C-alpha cells in the first residue's frame, strides 16, 4: 500500500483549491479528506470540470427550443431533431493548453475527446471541424505549433475515418504564447438508439472499456485551469497521448454495445478520467457506485489509487451494464480486441466508495462533486477594460489614402488570415465516408445525412478581433457570420455549440469580456432562432505577454431538407449576373485592411442589425431554394473585393473571372472595396432570374442589385481594379504553403 501524504490546507492550495473551497470540503465531509479524495475534489472543482466561474452566465443562453431534443448540459453533447427519426449530435471543445506545450498530441487528443463525447451518445461521427489560432507565421515556434497541430488533427481524424470537412484559422500576435485548438464533431443517431451518461439499478456492474490506465494526463483538468508561463513546458507529462486505432475500435464497439441494448449508461473518460465519469454518472442517476481499483487494467505497475482515479489516459469508457448481460458485453469487446474489466457496481446509497488494496481510499457524495450539484459557483467581478476606450478611437480620415487598390487586394489575399487553407485541409481526409457534398474551402461544408437525401451544413466561426474591440457585438457577429455561411449552402441554421476561449476570469476586465460576449451570443442566437446545444469554456488562455483576444468560437449546424438546394460559393456559369446583397458603409474597425495595410487593430467592429440580418438571410435562402441562384458567398474579412476574388478562385479547377462596375461611392474607394459591413452576400444567377430576384429582395425590404457579370480570366472591379486570375490564384493558394515550406 502506498503511503499517502497527509492532507492539509497547504496541500489543498497546491492542488488548486482555494482556502474557502478547502474549508467547504472539510465541512462537507465532516473530516479531513484522504489524499485520493483531495485529488477527486481538486479536479472536479477545477474550472475545467465545474464551470464554477462561467455557469451563471451560461445559464442566460437560450438552451432549449427549436428542434432540440436534449437541453444543453444534460448530456455529453447536444441533440437536435432532423426528421426521419434521426437526430444530429454535435459539440465543440478546446484543447488549448496541451497543444501549447505538445502540439501534436495536444491536438490529436483534442479530436479524440470530442469524438468520444459524440459516440458515447450512440451517434456515429460523420464530420469533424476545428477552429485554430496561432501567432504569426514569421516566427519559427508558431510554425512548429501550427504544423504539429495540423498533423495531430490529421493523423487522429484520418485514422478514425471521420472526414475533417471545415474549420477556420487565424494568426494574430496575441496567440503566440497560447494557441487555441478547438475541435468539433458532428454525429448522427436514431432517436431510439441514443445512450445516456447515467448510472442506476442496484447491483448493475460497472465496466471500464478500452485502453489500459497509465500515468498520462494526471491533473490535465487542473493544468487547463491555470495560466501558461515559462514553467508550463514542464507540464508536458500532463499531456495525454492519443491512440486513434484504439479509438476506432472503441467507436465501433461502443455503437455495437449501445445497439445491443445491454447498457444502462455509458460515459467517455475525458478530463479527470475515472473520477469525472463515475461521479457524474452516479450523480445523474441519484445513486452511488463502489469501485475496486485493483481491477482496473493498468499500463504500468505500482500506480496509486490517487493516480488511477485521476489518470486521463485516452480511449477509455465507463459503462454501467444491465445485470445478466456481462457475457454479451465481454464478447463484443473481445471481437474488437478491446480490454474490458468489471471494476465495481451500482449501489442505492448516493456515495462513491473507492477501494484499493483492501482499504477504502475514498468515500464521497457524487452530487457534491459535479456541476449542477455541490460544486462551487461564483459570480465574478466584471469591469470594463480600460483598453477599449483607447482602441475604439479611430479617425478614418487620418489614414493615408490607398493609391493602388489592386495591390491592396493582392496583399489581403496573401494575408494568412484570408489566404486559402488548402495546405491544411489537404492533410485531412475530408472525403472518407463518401458523403462530403461541399468540400472544404468554401463557406460551410456540407455532408450528406447517410441514407437520406438531406444534408448538414457545418461551420466554425469567430472573428476575435471584433470581439476584442467590442465583446458584445463581436460575439453577435460570430453567430451571424456562422449562420450566413450555413445559409450560403442552401441550409437553414439549426443550432450552435460554442467554445468560449478567454483569459483569467479572476481578472475583472477579462470577466467583463466574457460576460458581454456571452450576452451577445445569447442575443444573436435568440434572434436567429439557433439555440445553444452545449459547448465548452476555456479560461486562463494567457501567457506572460497577456491574454488572448476573447475568442467565443461558434460551431453551427444547418439542415438542407433536400440536397437539390446545395449551392457552392464559387461562380459557376459564365454570363451569370453577379448580385450584391446588402449595403456597404465605411466600416473599417478591426478590418483586415486596417491590420494588413496599416498595421493597426483599432476602431469599433462593424454595426450589426440582427433583424436586418435575419431578413437578409431569409431572403437569400428563399432565393436559393426557389432555384434562382447558382452560387452564394458571404462578404466577410477583406470586404467586397476579397469576396469577389474568392468567388472567382474557389473552384480551383475551373476559376471564373468577373467584371463588376460601381459608380463613385460616397466614401474613399478603398473603404468601399474593403469595408467589412455585415449582412452582405455575393450571389450569381442567370440573367433570366433578374426580375424574380428583384421582386424577392424588394418584398423582403433588402437592398440587392446586379453589379456585373461572371466570365473571362480577370477580376475587373471598375473603375479601380483589373487583375489576372492567375496572379490572384497564385497568391491565394500558395501563401500558406510557401510560409510553411520555408520553415522546412
Amino acid at each position, binding site marked *: 500500500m502506498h503511503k499517502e501524504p497527509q492532507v492539509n490546507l497547504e496541500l489543498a492550495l497546491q492542488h488548486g483549491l482555494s482556502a474557502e473551497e478547502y474549508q467547504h470540503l472539510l465541512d462537507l465531509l465532516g473530516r479531513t479528506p484522504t489524499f485520493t479524495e483531495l485529488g477527486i475534489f481538486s479536479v472536479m472543482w477545477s474550472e475545467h470540470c465545474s464551470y464554477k466561474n462561467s455557469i451563471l452566465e451560461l445559464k442566460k443562453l437560450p438552451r432549449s427550443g427549436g428542434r432540440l431534443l436534449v437541453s444543453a448540459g444534460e448530456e455529453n453533447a447536444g441533440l437536435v431533431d432532423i426528421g426521419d427519426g434521426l437526430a444530429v449530435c454535435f459539440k465543440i471543445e478546446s484543447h488549448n493548453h496541451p497543444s501549447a506545450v505538445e502540439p501534436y498530441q495536444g491536438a490529436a487528443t483534442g479530436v479524440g475527446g470530442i469524438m468520444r463525447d459524440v459516440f458515447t451518445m450512440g451517434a456515429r461521427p460523420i464530420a469533424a471541424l476545428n477552429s485554430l489560432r496561432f501567432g504569426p507565421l514569421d516566427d519559427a515556434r508558431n510554425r512548429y505549433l501550427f504544423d504539429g497541430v495540423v*498533423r495531430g488533427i490529421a493523423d487522429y481524424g*484520418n*485514422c478514425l475515418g471521420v472526414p475533417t470537412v471545415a474549420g477556420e484559422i487565424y494568426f494574430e500576435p496575441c496567440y503566440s504564447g497560447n494557441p487555441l485548438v478547438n475541435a468539433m464533431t458532428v454525429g448522427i443517431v436514431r432517436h431510439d438508439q441514443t445512450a445516456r451518461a447515467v448510472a442506476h439499478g442496484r447491483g448493475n456492474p460497472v465496466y471500464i472499456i478500452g485502453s489500459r490506465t497509465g500515468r498520462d494526463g494526471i491533473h490535465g483538468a487542473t493544468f487547463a485551469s491555470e495560466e501558461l508561463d515559462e514553467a508550463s513546458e514542464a507540464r508536458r507529462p500532463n499531456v495525454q497521448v492519443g491512440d486513434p486505432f484504439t479509438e*476506432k475500435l472503441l467507436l465501433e464497439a461502443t455503437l455495437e454495445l449501445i445497439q445491443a441494448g445491454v447498457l444502462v449508461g455509458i460515459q467517455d473518460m475525458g478530463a479527470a478520467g475515472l473520477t469525472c465519469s463515475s461521479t457524474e454518472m452516479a450523480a445523474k442517476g441519484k445513486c452511488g457506485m463502489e469501485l475496486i481499483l485493483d481491477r482496473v487494467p493498468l499500463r504500468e505497475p505500482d500506480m496509486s489509487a490517487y493516480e488511477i482515479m485521476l489518470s486521463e489516459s485516452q480511449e477509455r469508457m465507463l459503462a454501467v451494464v444491465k445485470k445478466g448481460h456481462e457475457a454479451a458485453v465481454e464478447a463484443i469487446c473481445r471481437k474488437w*480486441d478491446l480490454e474490458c474489466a468489471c471494476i465495481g457496481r451500482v449501489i442505492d446509497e448516493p456515495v462513491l466508495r473507492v477501494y484499493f488494496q483492501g482499504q477504502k481510499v475514498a468515500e464521497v457524495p457524487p452530487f457534491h462533486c459535479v456541476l449542477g450539484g455541490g460544486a462551487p459557483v461564483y459570480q465574478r467581478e466584471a469591469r470594463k477594460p480600460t483598453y477599449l476606450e483607447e482602441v475604439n478611437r479611430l479617425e478614418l480620415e487620418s489614414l493615408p489614402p490607398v493609391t493602388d487598390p489592386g495591390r491592396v487586394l493582392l496583399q489581403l489575399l496573401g494575408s494568412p488570415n484570408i489566404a486559402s487553407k488548402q495546405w491544411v485541409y489537404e492533410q*485531412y*481526409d475530408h472525403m472518407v465516408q463518401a458523403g462530403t*457534398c461541399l468540400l472544404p474551402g468554401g463557406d460551410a461544408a456540407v455532408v450528406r445525412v447517410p441514407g437520406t437525401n438531406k444534408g448538414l451544413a457545418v461551420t466554425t466561426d469567430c472573428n476575435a478581433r471584433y470581439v476584442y474591440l467590442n465583446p458584445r457585438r463581436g460575439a453577435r457577429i460570430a453567430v451571424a457570420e456562422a449562420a450566413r455561411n450555413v445559409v450560403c449552402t442552401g441550409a437553414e441554421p439549426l443550432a450552435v455549440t460554442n467554445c468560449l476561449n478567454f483569459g483569467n476570469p479572476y481578472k475583472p476586465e477579462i470577466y467583463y469580456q466574457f460576460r458581454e460576449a456571452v450576452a451577445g451570443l445569447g442575443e444573436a442566437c435568440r434572434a436567429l432562432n439557433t439555440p445553444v446545444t452545449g459547448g465548452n469554456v476555456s479560461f486562463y488562455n494567457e501567457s506572460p505577454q497577456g491574454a488572448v483576444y476573447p475568442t467565443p468560437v461558434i460551431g453551427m449546424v444547418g439542415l438542407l431538407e433536400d440536397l437539390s438546394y446545395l449551392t457552392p460559393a464559387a461562380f459557376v456559369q459564365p454570363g451569370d449576373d453577379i448580385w450584391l446583397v446588402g449595403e456597404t458603409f465605411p466600416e473599417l474597425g478591426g478590418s483586415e485592411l486596417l491590420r494588413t495595410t496599416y498595421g493597426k487593430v483599432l476602431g469599433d467592429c462593424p454595426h450589426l442589425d440582427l433583424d436586418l440580418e435575419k431578413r437578409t438571410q431569409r431572403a437569400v435562402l428563399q432565393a436559393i431554394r426557389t432555384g434562382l441562384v447558382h452560387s452564394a458567398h458571404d462578404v466577410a474579412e477583406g470586404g467586397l473585393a476579397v469576396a469577389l476574388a474568392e468567388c472567382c478562385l474557389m473552384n480551383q479547377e475551373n476559376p471564373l473571372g468577373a467584371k463588376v462596375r460601381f459608380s463613385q461611392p460616397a466614401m474613399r474607394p478603398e473603404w468601399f472595396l474593403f469595408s467589412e459591413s455585415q449582412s452582405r452576400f455575393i450571389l450569381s444567377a442567370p440573367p433570366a432570374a433578374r426580375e424574380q430576384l428583384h421582386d424577392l429582395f424588394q418584398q423582403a425590404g433588402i437592398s440587392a442589385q446586379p453589379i456585373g457579370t461572371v466570365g473571362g480570366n480577370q477580376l475587373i472591379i471598375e473603375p479601380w481594379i483589373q487583375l489576372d486570375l492567375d496572379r490572384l490564384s497564385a497568391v491565394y493558394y500558395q501563401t500558406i504553403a510557401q510560409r510553411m515550406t520555408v520553415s522546412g
Partner: protein
Amino acid sequence: MKSAVIVFPGSNCDRDVFRALARFGLNPSYVWHKETSLAGFDLVVLPGGFSYGDYLRAGAIARFSPIMREVVRVAEKGIRVLGICNGFQILTEAGLLPGALLRNAHLRFVCKYVWVRVENASTPFTAALGKQKTLKIPIAHGEGNYYADAEILAELEAGNQIVFRYATPDGQVSPAANPNGSVANIAGIINRKGNVLGMMPHPERAVEPLLGSTDGQWIFQSLLNTN
C-alpha cells in the same frame, strides 16, 4: 455476382465501398478478418483505412489476419481481388502484388481529387471504360508513394501491368501531376495473371455527381460486365 468486403480492425472505407458495390449490383457482404473462408464470392475487396492503425507499416500487420491466407488462396485460383488504398498496401505486404508503398515524398498525408490515365483498359477492372482515357478520382493517403526497383518496373511495363498513372486532366504524365512521388507516376497495378488489382485512388468516393465525380463507376461497371 457476389462480392466480399474484408473488414480489418481499423478499416474505414469498408462502408463506402460496400455502398458503391451495392449501387452497381455487385451484391456485397462484409467479411470479418478473423474468418477463414471466402467460398462463394466472385470478387474480394480490401477497403481503405488504417488496418491496425498502420502501426509498424501500412498493411504490415493486416497481412497476418486469418482471412489473408484465404485471400491469397482464392487469388491464386483466379478470383478477382481489388485492393484500394490500404487494401493496395496490404496486397503488396502479402506478396500478391510487387513493389511497396512508401511514405509520400513530401511526408504529409494528402487528400484531394487527382486525375489518372488508364494505361490498360483490357483488365476486368477497366474493360467498361470505352474511350475515356483519364479519370478524376480522389486520393487520401500518407503512404502512397509506389516504389519498385528497375527490374520489377521493367517487368510491370513489359506485362502491361501498370493500369493507372497520375496525370493531368488531359492525360499528360508529368512530375507536376504526381501527388506522392510514386515511381513512374504509378497509381495502380495488376498482377501478371490479371485478377488482382491494387490502386491508391478511391473509386468508391467518385460514383455520384453529388460528390463531384462519377469516374469511379467504371471500375465497378467493368467488374459487373466482365463477370
